[in-house]
């Protein structure tokens, strides 16, 4: 139908032209935002076409023909791009998330145009935003197509830098600068690990070879000694894991996501962190071609821990976007858990279960991209309308922003994995693969997989609690502040963008059977055909796992749920609910008015769980009462804080950062910027050299 190479060239041209065009327009105009959105959407459509081409042709898992090879763009190596199954899937993810987010950004970014009342107050350079945005999307698209080490690392770094500039877009806030710096440090630590990992992976092929294409790596990886393969795996795990937001490298996520503009948060959380998973899958499944069981075990354990840690901190965080960021840590954990399980199964030779787990992981990647970007867009709509993300000052938005509330609710239900939405199908498949793991012979694997199962189940429950809080406190009841009271519905394009994602959430849930065969094809291309039994069978509308183990037909389930709801409504009408209904004020112990101070707060909602998991949170209660006069009974100001302990920040990053500062202080004894001192050094070194070479 379309020539893939041509589509790719058009795609690159669109984004580059977009970057130039947006930069050339007048900064404050509507045209800037429109151009940025339109070029983003056009590029997304091209990526979608490319993804569909890739998924339609039954491409091999690896080593398919080179799409595009650009010589001379970079000084010492050509840029090479290949389309294979895994990259087609991730292209699909980028397109599906990228298109609505670009649409959303058109109306959202007017936030940063200076207001006529106070010129320059909130104004930021939208032209530069457009350049970074276009390059960010382009680099994400190209990084999954990259088929040489150099191309991959170059684009990976480009993606990191473009996203850094997007994160620090609101550069006038000190928090944003700090978040950006933290992100930059973390992403570069990951990059160092990746760089060393790739160099070690190429082994002897490294000598005199700057291209290092993936097909060469596949061959050289086979010849590597197993210790070196293990080291390569660990380095890649750290490098890609830090991008995916797994613990203990997750620290940048809760900082960077709230700081970035909402479309950027949506893209970073929906797509960019998934590219960490892409890298990990590419390395383990494709380039290294599988490894010992402990690789998968390590991924599984770290994934399970990330899932629990992420959601537990999401539960006690009352900043809407930071909550979503922690929830991304949790979802990355779930995906890692499933990928790890797939590797464990694969190394045990059970490709049937490996396929099942990998299909679950891939489907959850797509689902999380859709609903998390929806939730971030919803949070952005709230932020634009109320200028706050603190849940304790939100509330009552369902009456003021009904569409946003509906879409946010759809996102919350999806992320809580409730049928008939998409999150349910993905997590169901992952759970099935873990439940079936008893088929493995090894006892050790049983323990890990069962623990993973428990972690996943507990996570599922906590996600529901966290999103009941996120939706209930922010959108229901009475507004807790004047800003929330004066909130207005999001602009049209933002509503459309959220609507598209909400519908996608439902469709991916109901029509999962249409997409799952493609994912199964991707998994089989890397893992090989199912053995000893069938892992996943899709027949018509039904998904079956194992041999007569579990079966699910999402569409029928959805229809059944809808029917049940209709029957319930009909039954209530029949019972004469309309005549019996009597409306009166909510019971407030007979008080004259209802005040938002009577409402359930986010803190109070999270408190029972905070107590249950007190061994983890180690909350510190700080109550200060200020009494200005002589009497202690007339308090002027009461402040109560109950912060939780951030283990990794406190015990890992804190000491490391302090150590570096300590070292830097020591170094500054000899190097503290004084020119006279440096001249003395030069002189003394000269004298020493002269003395030494006197003979």
């Amino acid at each position, binding site marked *: 139908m379309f020539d893939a190479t041509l589509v790719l060239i058009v795609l690159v041209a669109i984004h580059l032209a977009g970057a130039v065009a947006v930069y050339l327009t007048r900064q404050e105009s509507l045209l800037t935002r429109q151009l940025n959105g339109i070029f983003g959407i056009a590029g997304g459509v091209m990526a979608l076409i490319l993804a569909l081409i890739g998924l339609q042709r039954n491409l091999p898992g690896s080593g398919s023909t080179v799409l595009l090879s650009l010589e001379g763009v970079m000084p010492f190596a050509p840029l090479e791009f290949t389309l294979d199954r895994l990259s087609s899937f991730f292209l699909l993810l980028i397109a599906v998330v990228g298109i609505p987010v670009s649409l959303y950004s058109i109306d959202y970014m007017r936030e940063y145009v200076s207001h006529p009342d106070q010129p320059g107050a909130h104004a930021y350079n939208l032209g530069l935003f457009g350049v970074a945005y276009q390059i960010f999307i382009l680099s994400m698209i190209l990084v999954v197509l990259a088929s040489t080490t150099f191309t991959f690392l170059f684009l990976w770094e480009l993606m990191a830098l473009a996203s850094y500039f997007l994160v620090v877009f609101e550069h006038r806030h000190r928090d944003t600068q700090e978040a950006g710096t933290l992100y930059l440090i973390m992403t570069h630590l990951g990059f160092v690990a990746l760089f060393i990992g790739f160099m070690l992976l190429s082994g002897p092929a490294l000598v005199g070879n700057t291209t290092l294409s993936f097909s060469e790596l596949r061959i050289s990886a086979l010849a590597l000694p197993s210790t070196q393969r293990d080291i390569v795996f660990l380095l890649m795990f750290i490098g890609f894991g830090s991008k995916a937001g797994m613990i203990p490298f997750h620290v940048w996520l809760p900082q960077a996501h709230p700081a970035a503009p909402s479309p950027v948060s949506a893209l970073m959380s929906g797509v960019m962190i998934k590219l960490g998973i892409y890298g990990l899958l590419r390395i383990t499944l494709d380039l290294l071609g599988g490894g010992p069981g402990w690789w998968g075990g390590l991924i599984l354990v770290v994934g399970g821990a990330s899932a629990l840690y992420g959601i537990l901190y999401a539960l006690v965080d009352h900043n809407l976007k930071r909550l979503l960021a922690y929830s991304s840590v949790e979802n990355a954990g779930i995906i890692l858990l499933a990928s790890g399980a797939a590797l464990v199964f694969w190394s045990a030779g059970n490709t049937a279960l490996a396929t099942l787990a990998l299909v679950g992981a891939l489907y959850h990647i797509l689902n999380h991209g859709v609903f998390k970007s929806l939730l971030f867009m919803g949070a952005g709509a709230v932020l634009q309308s109320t200028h706050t993300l603190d849940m304790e000052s939100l509330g009552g938005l369902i009456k003021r922003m009904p569409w946003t509330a509906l879409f946010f609710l759809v996102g919350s239900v999806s992320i809580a994995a409730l049928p008939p939405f998409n999150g349910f199908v993905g997590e169901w498949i992952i759970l099935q693969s873990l439940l079936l793991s008893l088929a493995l012979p090894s006892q050790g694997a049983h323990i890990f997989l069962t623990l993973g199962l428990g972690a996943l189940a507990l996570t599922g429950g906590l996600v529901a609690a966290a999103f009941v809080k996120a939706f209930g406190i922010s959108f229901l009841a009475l507004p807790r502040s004047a800003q929330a009271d004066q909130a207005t519905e999001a602009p049209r394009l933002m509503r459309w963008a959220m609507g598209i994602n909400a519908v996608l959430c439902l469709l991916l849930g109901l029509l999962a059977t249409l997409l799952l065969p493609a994912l199964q094809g991707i998994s089989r291309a890397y893992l090989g055909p199912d053995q000893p039994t069938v892992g996943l069978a899709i027949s018509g509308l039904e998904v079956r796992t194992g041999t007569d183990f579990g079966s699910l037909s999402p569409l029928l389930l959805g229809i059944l749920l809808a029917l049940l709801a209709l029957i319930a409504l009909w039954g209530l009408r029949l019972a004469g609910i309309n005549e*019996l209904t*009597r409306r*009166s*004020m909510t*019971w*407030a112990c*007979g*008080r*004259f008015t209802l005040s938002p101070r009577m409402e359930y707060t986010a803190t109070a909602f999270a408190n029972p769980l905070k107590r249950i998991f007190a061994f983890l949170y180690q909350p510190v209660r700080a109550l200060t009462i200020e009494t200005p006069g002589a009497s202690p009974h007339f308090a002027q100001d009461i402040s109560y804080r109950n912060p939780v302990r951030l283990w990794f920040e406190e015990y890992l990053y804190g000491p490391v950062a302090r150590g570096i500062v300590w070292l830097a202080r020591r170094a500054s004894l000899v190097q503290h910027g004084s020119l006279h001192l440096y001249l003395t050094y030069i002189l003394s070194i000269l004298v020493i050299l002269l003395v030494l070479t006197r003979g």
Partner: protein
Amino acid sequence: MWDMIRKIRQVGILTEPLPPFPAEYTQQDPQVELVGGELQQRTRILLGRSLHIRQVDAGSDNAAELEIIALGNPYYDMERFGLHIVASPRHADCLMVTGPVTRNMALPLLRTYEATPDPKIVVAVGDAARDGGIFRGSYAIIGGVDQVVPVDLYIPGDPPTPLELLTGMLIALDRYRGKSSRRE
């Protein structure tokens, strides 16, 4: 959790056995038993098990409250007849309103009435609740309870005795039957 288990192990059981029960404690007031037994039977037939009462003090001098509280003491012990005082009008079948309705309590009383699910009965307890009683004519009161919400039954007396209250509740149950059948 370990602290609790350690404490259980270290401290052991400290409660003492119950002394033998003196016979005079079980003597009963025949009138209370008669009215109470009838109440219990009717609540079982009418409501399945028990009647839940929300007491509203709409500006009372506490005389009627003392008598209502007396219903809960071991002598009358109304809970054995299936009468319960509950903490929220949301749980109540019956509102027991005392006192002349003061201006400040008029709206809360109305809110309480609105918050009570149908079918419900309103019992005005005491003379003050009927027409203001000794407070009648005061600038601070609105008047009887019926000035604010519809009343099904007045129990006169300043204050009525617990036995009168129990007897009144018998009649109130009859009124309740009328209401609940109208609904069906």
